[in-house]
């Protein structure tokens, strides 16, 4: 019996890459696995994907999935700029970025927010563990206030909230998840890939080596115990009205993504959070922050906001596919300019 394959005739294994060098049990590894699973399930062409990252344990992980894709392991906190450049000159690429909470929340906060503001088309995953894993356990900007770690001491500062930051920068897709919830991570990843602008996925991803004590809100135990799932999510590659109609009215909301796929949200939250309502998203996030809730799910989505390529009025063809005759204006154009600038033509 041969291995199962997807519509590209590729097995799940074909979506793997080098073996991970992260710690056993690290949340980042399980996210890598979900990326592999999703790419396999969606039958993604790996050559259409670019993998981007900053620096950190999290940022290493693109070496461990989609081995046939191009990748760029950028500088600490600077993946957003690389993503902006690459996706602007090649609109066909699907950019999957992996960053850490230090990478995005500390050194990279400015770039992150400006990327979000430009709505650069990238699936931007923050593997959020509240610490700097790679430099051995200092608090990051998302660490809990008052938290104590053997090495780093007590964290006296309030955490920044990646989702809130994204929203304040007018993000068009904001979700939070938990590395321990593989299914939710997968459905969100699929939706994020189908989303046309920046999709921010703040995924709590425990660092088993430095920050997995059950009192930490970034630990597996805490996550499992406290996760409050906003919706039950199902990604539907092609629109299937029957699937929707089966649902009780009022309980299910569908969001059409720009490539024609849909995300079906079955609301679990009593408040019936509506992820297309920005003010509600703000309120929901800020309440959760004040009350210390760990809400997960799709927090906000807006498929209308134009991307950077759109606001730049780019031609549909990726710029890098344009041949010389489209890029270098003709000889006559220069002559005209020379004449205009000339002394005495």
């Amino acid at each position: 019996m041969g291995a199962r394959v997807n519509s590209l005739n590729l097995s799940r294994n074909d979506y793997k890459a080098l073996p991970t060098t992260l710690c056993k049990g690290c949340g980042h590894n399980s996210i890598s696995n979900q990326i592999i699973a999703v790419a396999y399930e969606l039958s993604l062409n790996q050559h259409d994907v670019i993998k981007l990252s900053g620096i950190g344990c999290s940022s290493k992980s693109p070496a461990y999935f989609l081995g046939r894709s191009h990748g760029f392991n950028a500088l600490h906190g600077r993946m957003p700029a690389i993503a902006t450049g690459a996706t602007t000159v090649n609109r066909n690429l699907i950019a999957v970025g992996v960053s850490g909470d230090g990478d995005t929340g500390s050194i990279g906060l400015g770039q992150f927010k400006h990327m979000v503001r430009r709505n650069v088309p990238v699936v931007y995953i923050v593997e959020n563990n509240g610490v700097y894993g790679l430099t051995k356990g200092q608090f990051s900007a998302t660490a809990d206030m008052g938290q104590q770690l053997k090495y780093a001491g007590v964290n006296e500062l309030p955490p920044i909230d990646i989702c809130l930051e994204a929203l304040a920068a007018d993000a068009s897709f904001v979700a939070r998840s938990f590395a321990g919830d593989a299914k939710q991570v997968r459905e969100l990843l699929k939706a994020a890939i189908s989303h046309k602008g920046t999709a921010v996925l703040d995924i709590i991803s425990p660092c088993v080596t430095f920050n997995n004590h059950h009192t930490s809100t970034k630990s597996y135990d805490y996550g499992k115990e406290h996760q409050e799932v906003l919706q039950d999510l199902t990604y539907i590659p092609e629109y299937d009205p029957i699937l929707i109609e089966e649902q009780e009215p009022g309980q299910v909301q569908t969001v059409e993504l720009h490539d024609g796929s849909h995300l079906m949200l079955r609301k679990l939250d009593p408040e019936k959070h509506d992820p297309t309502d920005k003010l509600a998203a703000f309120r929901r996030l800020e309440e959760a922050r004040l009350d210390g809730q760990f809400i997960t799910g799709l927090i906000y989505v807006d498929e209308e906001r134009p991307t950077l390529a759109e606001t730049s009025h780019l031609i549909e063809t990726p710029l890098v596919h344009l041949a010389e005759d489209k890029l270098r204006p003709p000889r006559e154009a220069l002559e005209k300019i020379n004449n205009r600038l000339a002394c005495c033509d």
Partner: protein
Amino acid sequence: MSNVQSSPLEELLDGQTPIVNDFQIMIATVNGSGSQTANTVLLRAMFRMGIPVSGKNIFPSNIQGLPTWYTIRVSKDGYIARREDYNILVAMNRDTIGEDIKYLAPGGICFYPEEWKIREDRDDIVYYAMPVKALVKEAAPDTPSKLVDYVANMVYVGAMTTILNISLDEIAFGLDYHFGGKEKPINMNMAVVRAAYEWAQDNLPKRDPFTVEPMDKTEGMLLLDGNSAGALGSVFGGVQMIAWYPITPSTSMVDAARDYLSKLRQDPETGQATYAVVQAEDEIGAIGMVIGAGWAGARAMTSTSGPGVSLMTEFAGLAYYAEVPAVIWNVQRMGPSTGLPTRTAQGDILSTYFLGHGDTRHIMLFPRDVFEAFECGWKAFDLAERLQTLIFVMSDLELGMNAWMSPPFEYPEVPMDRGKVLDANAVEAAGRFARYEDPDGDGIGYRTLPGTDHPLAGYFARGTGHNPQAVYSERPDDWVENMERLARKFETTRDMVPQPVIDTMDEAEIGIIAYGTTDACVFEARDQLLAEDVKTDYLRLRALPLNDTTRSFIEQHDRVYVVENNFDGQMASIIQMEYPELATRIISLAHSDGLPLAATWLTGAVLEQEQ
């Protein structure tokens, strides 16, 4: 002639032949008062009369209200360097008129607004008082009040047109050119010019020797600033992405690029563009975008100045080490630090050459004028893609923001060199792909672009140590091999960058090396030195790294003066470190006070050593 004792001025002027097409005008105004129009109209008028001219703006780092000086050099011999003295002063700034007059060369002229009623207390110059207010009122009574100051500048245009014998038609042409044919401003300004012109014809007897006469020395030439020329060259280089952050004096380069691009590379109907210009949130973002774009296969560039380059340091190291092509224009201004944003220097040579921690050396181009700025615009992309690295084009404020004459720009005669890029077929044919190998022995590997439809085409670009397959490696041998390949690539570079240009004189014993805008100073100083019987050979560097041409040039001269517009003699240091065996032949002549170098300074400095 009367026999009362003649004044120094009369003595100076007495029997003197007219000074034709050889003087410098200094127009002192207030920032934000709109004198730029008047000045460039004057400049262009003389330019169109066939007379070599150059215009330099010395302006403050603010928006409104501070002193600004514009110099127009008129030189029948085609000298365009800054002159230290000036012969004609247009004193339109009350705050500085005292100092401005003080430094006017004996025998010179001073135009000033009559209503200021200054004391004409220098007796070795000619004063021409102009009834500025009255003329504006008379000629353009309906001028909106916020434009009055602006239009007032046309008074000196008119007066100078009379006194210097400039063609009024060319002034009219200049205004038309400046306002792109828009009638209203043209007429308003021209009315004042004409009024002042006529008033001067009637009321201002010429008492000075300065005059212009038509020549034929600018036939077919252009007049432009270097930022526009560089931008245009980039457009003809097929630029696909510009990411930038505003900073003086580089901002106008991107402005010009946007302008040209919107005309040449945007569908007039759909508005669809074949390029992207992104204003980043800072220079780190700008260079990061450019590197992302370059990695993805685009011709990408940014334009900035010293502070921006400093912020780009870490990314510059990444691009160097991950071998990503991109172009960075450094339109240099005074440093260290924020320094003087509106003053020129060639002060970033050493810091750019070694930009980035670790063993790094970058490639730099040095355009000397707008012609070369255009050329660097497109060539830099060819080099960047061929060499898979950053190319720094080292312009400066003097080139970027001042007005230069130039022969017409030459259309690139070679197709765009996209460098060693493998497509899916090539990868298929090879049956393998390793990004950082050196199959050709020139240190340059082959790359693939994201999106290449082949399972072997992908690789992971990184700033960390890697093996030829681009896989992270901490192995000492991988590190050393990679550095040795990069060193090989640097050697390849030497003969690929624009080569030095040499100009010799018979029996010259000493050599001069210069680069970039300092060329104008050397060009003139060599004539001055020749007049003092000091013959010079001259090598103009057009790029770093150096190559053997420069080595032999130095070998052929016992003393080689390296002339540059910075404080530390930075290029001299680089030459000494590259050619230790020739180090003692190098004499550094470096000066930097914010202004372009003057030939008299260089001549003096060389004579001091040689005599």
